[in-house]
C-alpha cells in the first residue's frame, strides 16, 4: 500500500499557489495536512490564545482547502490551530470552519483535538515524578504552573489517529508536533515508520524543501520502505540536496528528531533523485522510546510601554551609550522617588538602534551612524503603571542633556503621543516532557456535525 499526503504550505495564513493546489488535487491524495502555527513568533500567542495571522486570510485559505477536501473526499487536518494550539485557538478555527461549511453548503464531521492542560493536572504529574526538564529548562513547581496563562502538550501521531478514527472529514487539532499531522495516517496504514516521520519532517514546511520555497504545495507519498516527495508548482524542484538540507531547518540536531514515543534517526538515510524534481528517501529509522509529550507554557511577565526618540546631533550620536546609561539611571531614581516603586517592581531598558539593538552585548562591530534610535522599553506589573512611568520618562527622552552645563537638547519624537502601550507581555516558562501511560490520557476529542443542517453530536 502507499499513502499520499498533500501539504499545501508551511502554515495556514502564509499563502500557497492555487494552481499548485489544483495540481495536487488532480493527482490525488489520502489526506490534506497543514500546520496552523508554531512558537516561532514568540510567547504572545500562547499567552493570549490569539492567532497571529489575519482571520480573513486564514478563512480564505481554509475555504480553498475545504473545497479541495470535498472534491477528494479525504480528511483535512490542521495542527497547532490558531498559532498556539490552545483550546480557545482550536475553537476559533472551529468557528471559521462552521461558517465556511454553511457558506459552502458542505455537511461535514469536524473533530476537535484539544491539547490544553490544566495547571493542576500537570502539577499532579510533576508531584508523581512524571514531568522531566529538557535542557535548558525554567524552574517549575505547582505555584509556577498555576501562574501560567496557558499550558499545552504537543500531541503526536497517536492522538491525531484517535481523531481520524472518529470518521472526521476535518480535524482541528490543538498543539501537535509539526510532523504528527502528516505522519499519523501513513503510520496507521502500516507504512515504514522511519519513512513516515522523516517524510513528515521534510514536508512540514511545504515547499521549503524545494528550490521554490514560496510555491507552497508539496505531495509526499509513503510506502513500506521509504517515501517520495514532489513539489506541485511546476517551476519548483526537490533535489537530494534541498530535501536533505531541510533536516537542518529549526532542528538543533540534524540527524535525530524527538517525537512522542520515540525518535527519528536519519543518520543512514539515502536520498535518490527519481528525476529532475522528485526525490526518494530510504534508510530512515524510527527508534521507539518511553511515551512522553512535550509541554509548552506561557506566563505573564508584566505590561509594557514603549517610547522611541531619534538622536541626530553628532555629539549625541557619538555618545549615545553614555546618554542612555545616564537616562536609565535618572529614570530609575525618579520612578523610585516620585512613584514610590521598588526596583523589583519595574524595569526600564534603552536599546540603541544603529548601535547594537539586535545583538546587544554580543555586537562586534562599531561604526558611526548618522543617527541613533533610542527605543525605551518599560515593564511594570500593570499597564497603568507602565504608562505612568512612560509619562514620567517622556520629558527626559526628549530633553535630557549629556552634561548639566549645556543647553537642553530636543531629540526627534517620530509621532504623538510619544508613548505606546504594548499590553501584556508573556514569557515561555516550560521546556519539559510529561510521561503518559496512554496517549489520550492528556488529550480530548469533540465531534461535531456542521453545515447547512448543523447539529452537535
Amino acid at each position, binding site marked *: 500500500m502507499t499513502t499520499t499526503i498533500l501539504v499545501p504550505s508551511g502554515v495556514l495564513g502564509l499563502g500557497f499557489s492555487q494552481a499548485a493546489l489544483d495540481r495536487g488535487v488532480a493527482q490525488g491524495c489520502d489526506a490534506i495536512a497543514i500546520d496552523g502555527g508554531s*512558537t*516561532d*513568533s*514568540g*510567547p*504572545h500567542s500562547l499567552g493570549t490564545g490569539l492567532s497571529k495571522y489575519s482571520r480573513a486570510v486564514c478563512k480564505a485559505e481554509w475555504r480553498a482547502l475545504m473545497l479541495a477536501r470535498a472534491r477528494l473526499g479525504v480528511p483535512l487536518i490542521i495542527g497547532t490551530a490558531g498559532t498556539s494550539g490552545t483550546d480557545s485557538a482550536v475553537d476559533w478555527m472551529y468557528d471559521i470552519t462552521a461558517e465556511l461549511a454553511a457558506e459552502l453548503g458542505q455537511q461535514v464531521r469536524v473533530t476537535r483535538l484539544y491539547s490544553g492542560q490544566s495547571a493542576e493536572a500537570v502539577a499532579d504529574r510533576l508531584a508523581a515524578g512524571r514531568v522531566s526538564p*529538557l*535542557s*535548558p*529548562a*525554567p524552574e517549575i513547581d505547582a505555584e509556577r504552573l498555576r501562574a501560567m496563562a496557558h499550558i499545552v502538550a504537543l500531541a503526536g501521531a497517536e492522538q491525531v489517529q484517535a481523531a481520524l478514527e472518529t470518521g472526521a472529514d476535518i480535524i482541528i487539532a490543538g498543539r501537535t508536533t509539526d510532523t504528527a499531522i502528516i505522519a499519523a495516517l501513513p503510520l496507521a496504514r502500516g507504512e515504514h515508520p522511519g519513512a513516515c516521520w522523516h517524510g513528515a519532517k521534510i514536508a512540514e514546511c511545504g515547499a521549503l524543501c524545494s528550490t521554490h520555497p514560496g510555491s507552497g504545495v508539496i505531495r509526499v507519498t509513503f510506502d513500506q520502505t521509504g517515501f517520495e516527495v514532489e513539489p506541485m508548482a511546476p517551476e519548483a524542484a526537490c533535489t537530494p*540536496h534541498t530535501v*536533505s*538540507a531541510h533536516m*537542518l*531547518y*529549526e*532542528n*538543533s*540536531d*540534524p*540527524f535525530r528528531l524527538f517525537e512522542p514515543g520515540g525518535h527519528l534517526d536519519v543518520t543512514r538515510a539515502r536520498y535518490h533523485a527519481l528525476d529532475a524534481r522528485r526525490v526518494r528517501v530510504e534508510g530512515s529509522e524510527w527508534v521507539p522510546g518511553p511515551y512522553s509529550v512535550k509541554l*509548552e507554557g506561557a506566563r505573564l*511577565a*508584566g505590561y509594557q510601554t514603549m517610547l522611541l526618540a531619534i538622536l541626530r546631533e553628532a555629539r549625541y550620536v557619538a555618545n549615545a551609550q553614555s546618554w542612555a546609561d545616564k537616562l536609565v539611571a535618572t529614570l530609575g531614581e525618579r520612578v523610585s522617588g516620585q512613584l514610590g516603586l521598588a526596583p523589583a517592581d519595574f*524595569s526600564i*531598558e534603552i*536599546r540603541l538602534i544603529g548601535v547594537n*539593538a*539586535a*545583538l*546587544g*552585548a*554580543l555586537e*562586534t*562591530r562599531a561604526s558611526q551612524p548618522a543617527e541613533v534610535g533610542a527605543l525605551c*522599553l518599560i*515593564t511594570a506589573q500593570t499597564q497603568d503603571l507602565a504608562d505612568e512611568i512612560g509619562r514620567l520618562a517622556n520629558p527626559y527622552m526628549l530633553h535630557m542633556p549629556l552634561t548639566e552645563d549645556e543647553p537642553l537638547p530636543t531629540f526627534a519624537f517620530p509621532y504623538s503621543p510619544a508613548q505606546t502601550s504594548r499590553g501584556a*507581555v*508573556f*514569557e*515561555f516558562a516550560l*521546556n519539559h516532557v510529561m510521561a503518559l501511560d496512554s496517549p489520550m490520557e492528556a488529550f480530548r476529542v469533540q465531534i461535531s456535525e456542521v453545515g447547512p443542517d448543523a447539529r452537535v453530536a
Partner: protein
Amino acid sequence: MPVLRDIVRKVTAKNAGPFQVTIDVFCGTPEAFGRVVPALRNDAVAALFGVEPGVLRRFDIADLHVVKFSMPRPVVQGSRGDRDMHGAQLATLLEELVI
C-alpha cells in the same frame, strides 16, 4: 583578512524552539567546506555567542558541505531581554568572523 562570509555561500540562524538556536554555515563547495571546518574553532564560536564551550553542539556534514552549530539561546525567546524574536540576526556574528 577574509571573513567567513567571503568564503561560504550563506550563513543562516534560526530558533530551534524557544530555548535553542541553530546556525548553519552553507559552504557551497567541498573546497570551502575543507577550509571552513578547521578554521572555525569551537571555543571562538562559543565566545562569539556568549555561551560556555561545553553547551555548543557541532555537526560537520560533509555531504551537504555544511557546518552546523546549536546552542542554548543567549536569552530565552521572547523573554524581556530578548532582542531578536527569531534569532536570525545571530548569523551575522558568525558571517563577520575573521577566518
